[in-house]
């Protein structure tokens, strides 16, 4: 396998990486492309592109509404790969797809990973595929030469964490809140020691996500050893708030990125 963009980005990092998330096709295809440009320009180190699913059980209202907007704008798996190809034609940013199992099953697991790799994606995370069900997904990722990203959480048992750290590709997506996606003011008690523990046991970078929206939270995760953070609903909520107000959409995305971007933290 050629050196991966994801591994390179973590190796070269001088600050915790910001994984910036947006839903493909929200509010429509063209706008998505502009949003990804803006996310990269304003400090996003890795792009997490969500392929929406009609029944996203891991998601709170903000991401649910974004998925509904994207699906009603006509987003589908074919267009997802077109969008990634368009992004790749102008940007070298590491990019992962986050989706749900049925989207991958219906394309065919091997074909999904092959198409993802060919379009220029560097990894795939599937929100409702725990390590026990991940075998065929990992095999397809390996065959396509990209990463299959696994999740861990505070309630993950010792035993299961061992198999997750053994099999993880790219980085470990540490679910940092017991609940669904959505902005939270606080940090779950116990999550920082969980970051330390997973970090101690993992050979790949550890990146918390869920509920993160402030530079204070990011500072706390970084101090606990996190290699980056994933910011989703805070960005996607801004996109939703300006879906009908296109002129102010990209400035709003820039503002939220400026508020949270971790490399700016060093200047505090």
């Amino acid at each position, binding site marked *: 396998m050629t050196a991966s963009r994801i591994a390179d980005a973590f190796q070269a990092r001088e600050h915790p990486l910001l994984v910036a998330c947006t839903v493909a096709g929200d509010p429509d295809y063209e706008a998505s492309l502009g949003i990804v440009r803006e996310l990269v320009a304003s400090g996003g180190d890795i792009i997490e592109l969500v392929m929406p699913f*009609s029944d996203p059980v*891991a998601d709170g209202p903000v991401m*649910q509404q974004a998925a509904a907007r994207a699906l009603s704008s006509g987003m589908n798996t074919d267009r997802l790969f077109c969008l990634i190809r368009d992004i790749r034609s102008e940007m070298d940013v590491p990019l992962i797809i986050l989706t749900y199992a049925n989207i*991958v*099953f*219906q394309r065919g697991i091997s074909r999904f990973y092959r198409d993802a790799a060919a379009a220029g994606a560097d990894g795939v995370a599937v929100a409702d595929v725990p390590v026990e*069900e991940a075998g065929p997904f990992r095999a397809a990722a390996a065959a396509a030469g990209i990463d299959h990203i696994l999740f861990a959480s505070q*309630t993950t048992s010792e035993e*299961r964490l061992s198999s997750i750290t053994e099999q993880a590709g790219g980085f470990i997506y540490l679910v940092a809140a017991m609940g669904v996606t959505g902005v939270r003011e606080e940090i779950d008690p116990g999550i920082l020691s969980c970051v330390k523990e997973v970090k101690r046991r993992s050979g790949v970078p550890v990146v918390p996500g869920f509920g993160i929206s402030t530079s204070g939270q990011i500072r706390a995760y970084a101090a606990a050893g996190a290699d980056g953070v994933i910011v989703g609903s805070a960005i996607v909520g801004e996109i939703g708030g300006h879906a009908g107000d296109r002129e102010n959409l990209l400035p709003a995305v820039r503002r939220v990125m400026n508020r949270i971007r971790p490399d700016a933290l060093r200047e505090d």
Partner: protein
Amino acid sequence: MNDSSRFGPYGGRFVPETLMAALEELEEAYRTIVPSEPFQREMSFYLREYAGRETPLTFCRNMSDDLGCRVYLKREDLLHSGAHKLNNALGQALLARSMGKTRIIAETGAGQHGVASAIAGAVLGLNVEVFMGTEDMARQALNVARMRMLGARVVPVKSGSRTLKDAINEALRDWVTRLSETHYLIGSVVGPHPFPAMVRDFQTVIGEETRRQILEKEGSLPDAIVACVGGGSNALGMFVPFLSDEVLLYGAEAGGEGLEGNHGATLCAGRPGVLHGAYTYLLQDAFGQILESHSVSAGLDYPGVGPEHSLLKDCGRVLYRAVTDAEAIDSFLYLSRKEGIIPALESAHAVALARKLAVYQQKNDILVINLSGRGDKDVAQVASLMGSSL
């Protein structure tokens, strides 16, 4: 994961990482507590003394004369609460209490499972919150009132199609946020392992009684058994004790407006995929987005089905047929007028399929219909659909 999580290729545990610990805890409890003597003793006390088991297997003279074979109804409509759902609700609520949980959440479509959960929570001293789509709250208003009388909180679900599918999504989302005190009392043989196996086990009492009763009454097993299939719990509970017998098994799915229009006939017209934690037949588009189902009956209005049914379909052991809204309403009135029993609209689908199958039966053939529930909840809806023609 052990093989018991799969039915052939179907089933499994496709859930977010945050739910895995809860499912492992539940599986452990299901394996160790449920088979234990004290649990079984409690369970049979509640089923017998409280819920009113066993339910009769009624020989229907008028229908038998009309259809030209020997027709029996398994009377789950006479169970406390008015539907089979209580068998499972009592089982899981007892288990939840043994696990030290204080709060129960449930989803409901027709409201029967919500009512059953509210009843089980009331009698066992557990707080109950029921997620219900606003579409279903409107068409099953009587059951919404019943749940509230019983002390349960009904949480309106406004996302997606605002029916059963979305109520399950919302219950799963709630469960992750309050795992330690909460048990998710799922209402059918759907969801991630161990739910499909556990709910089946709690409903198998239907088929076990039926087997004993028919052997007592007729001295032989039935020729055919018919049950309606939403998620599939009343059907599986009825079928399981007959799986290795020479008995034809039929599942009636929601044909809605017909298979060319809107419907809920997942096994007849769907394709395998993943929804609500399991790999199973689904109604979906070419890219895997779940389609909205339609049925006149809220309890069958679901674009998925229990994974064990997917296997039973593939291997041909159970035959699944679609029954339209119109046929179900016709049989709702038929059973009411022929036998003086108002069936649930869900169960009316089974009655309708049985009436079609009767053509193939001989005079002495025995046909058993699982009457999964009574129709009081549907009276207002059917009356308004019929308008002045009633």
